[in-house]
């Protein structure tokens, strides 16, 4: 089974589920973070020899993660509605515990996970605009010269909104998307390494022979990668 963990309204996740169902011989299920967190029985065992985990959902469905062969992880926020009546201090503590549990649990899964969680964001590595521009410069992608000081208003450093440039995907050293020259291919792959995500969506703009960095995310819109990206994902899941 392949499990996609995403909110009910997550359109890229729904699209990917439909695509993977057409291509894979195993069930592809979509589960929301709320279904997981509100499961009446959550069990994670850790030991020196290894770990195991399982969930029994409210509808009686049981997930033994030893039988899950791949996970698409798109947990972007914690379901916290059930803590609404708790005192503020208890709410904060419980939210921290829930985040810590999900982070540890997702990181412990033996099967391929796209993307594995990171301490700063459950959906995978995340970088601030300052850090993203630094990684881009070091990888050979261009960015505009900037000067910041603490008196500056919180202006955005990167362009808002999608659609301003070309969209690339880097998955395990493979570049998917528009054809680029070797230098920029290497730059995009180096950028993804620096970012630390197994699957990264990067948007760039080509101008004057240079490729300018616009933005990146480890929460991709798979629809923009089309069948080439879906094919690469199926290969990660080894089917």
């Amino acid at each position, binding site marked *: 089974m392949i499990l996609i963990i995403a909110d009910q309204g997550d359109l890229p996740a729904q699209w990917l589920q439909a695509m993977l169902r057409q291509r894979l011989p195993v069930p592809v299920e979509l589960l929301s973070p709320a279904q997981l967190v509100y499961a009446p029985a959550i069990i994670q065992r850790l030991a020196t020899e290894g770990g195991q985990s399982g969930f029994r959902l409210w509808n009686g469905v049981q997930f033994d993660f030893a039988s899950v062969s791949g996970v698409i992880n798109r947990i972007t926020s914690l379901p916290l509605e059930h803590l609404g009546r708790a005192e503020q201090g208890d709410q904060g503590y419980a939210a921290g515990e829930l985040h810590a549990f999900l982070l*540890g649990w997702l990181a412990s899964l033996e099967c391929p996970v796209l993307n594995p969680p990171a301490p700063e964001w459950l959906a995978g590595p995340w970088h601030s605009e300052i850090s993203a521009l630094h990684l881009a410069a070091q990888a050979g992608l261009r960015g505009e010269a900037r000067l910041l000081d603490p008196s500056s208003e919180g202006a955005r450093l990167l362009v808002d909104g999608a659609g301003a440039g070309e969209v690339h995907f880097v998955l395990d050293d493979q570049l998917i998307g528009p054809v680029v020259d070797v230098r920029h291919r290497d730059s995009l792959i180096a950028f993804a390494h620096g970012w630390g995500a197994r699957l990264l969506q990067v948007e760039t703009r080509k101008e004057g022979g240079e490729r300018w960095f616009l933005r990146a995310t480890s929460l991709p819109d798979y629809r923009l990668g089309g069948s080439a990206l879906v094919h690469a994902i199926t290969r990660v899941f080894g089917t």
Partner: protein
Amino acid sequence: MILIAGIADEPPVAMAIEAAEECGVGHIVFDQRDHAEAGLSLALDPLEGWRARLTLQGREIELHRLTGAYVRLMDERFLPDVRDLAEDAPERQRAIRFHRMLLEWCNIAPIRIANRPRAMLSNTSKTFQAELIRRCGFAIPETLVTNDPDAVLAFVENCAAEGDEVIYKSISGARSIVQTFTAADRERLHRIRWCPTQFQRKVRGTDMRVHVIGNRCFATNIESKATDYRYSARETGEDAELTATAIAPEWEGRCIRLAAALDLSFAGIDLRMTPGGEVVCFEANPSPAYSYYQSRTDAPIAQALVRWLAGEAQAG
């Protein structure tokens, strides 16, 4: 030249400053309480990345020209001159931006940093760290994380049948006192339905704290009758007894590997040596309050830290 940033008289920071003076390591101290008078700018070089300049009492410091920085900043929201300010007060907004920029620079700085803020986040989940700990060759405690009271009772009974107690503690980095599971806890076990909780088979043995700096280790043996030695005086009426000790090269290597896996140049690793010879690792602290250990053992941790930040090569 190194930068030491934090509350200058907080023991770990004060000890690092003293060590730098003793060792003749050139250093600049940024006392965080002076943040409002300090200047900071970040300039993006399209080819090199960001360059930072810190201004302290009129002196401009190009941060990328330093060899290293020890950064132990407190949450700026609780600084004395910030905590009572309105949310939208310009001084508060500046303090937020100043600290965010400084921490961002620490994440990307091309020099030695103890520790990069990003790397310190692994401490927000003990179970996240546990997986890395296991992969680095340490034993980890048998652990159950669950919201199912029946599963806890079965775990407790299973451990009891083998003569072991069960303890419980936070999964997150929130400071919690490790507690032994007792009969009274059975009565309130239903509360875990709200949030998965961490239970562990109690590991018997002697505690050891290993401070890793680069590829050097300083081990401290800890004797205490308390469940959590940090609260030994409160729990048992006696302070924990700390002594400097040696650690076998094999385990020293694993400690160094673990710190590297967590991208921590400076880490406080909590071990327990069991009577059966196992080395169980509980966690790696990314902002170790090493002064507590150094003041009781005279281990030269601060000296090693400032020398490493100054660029000193280490053996091994």
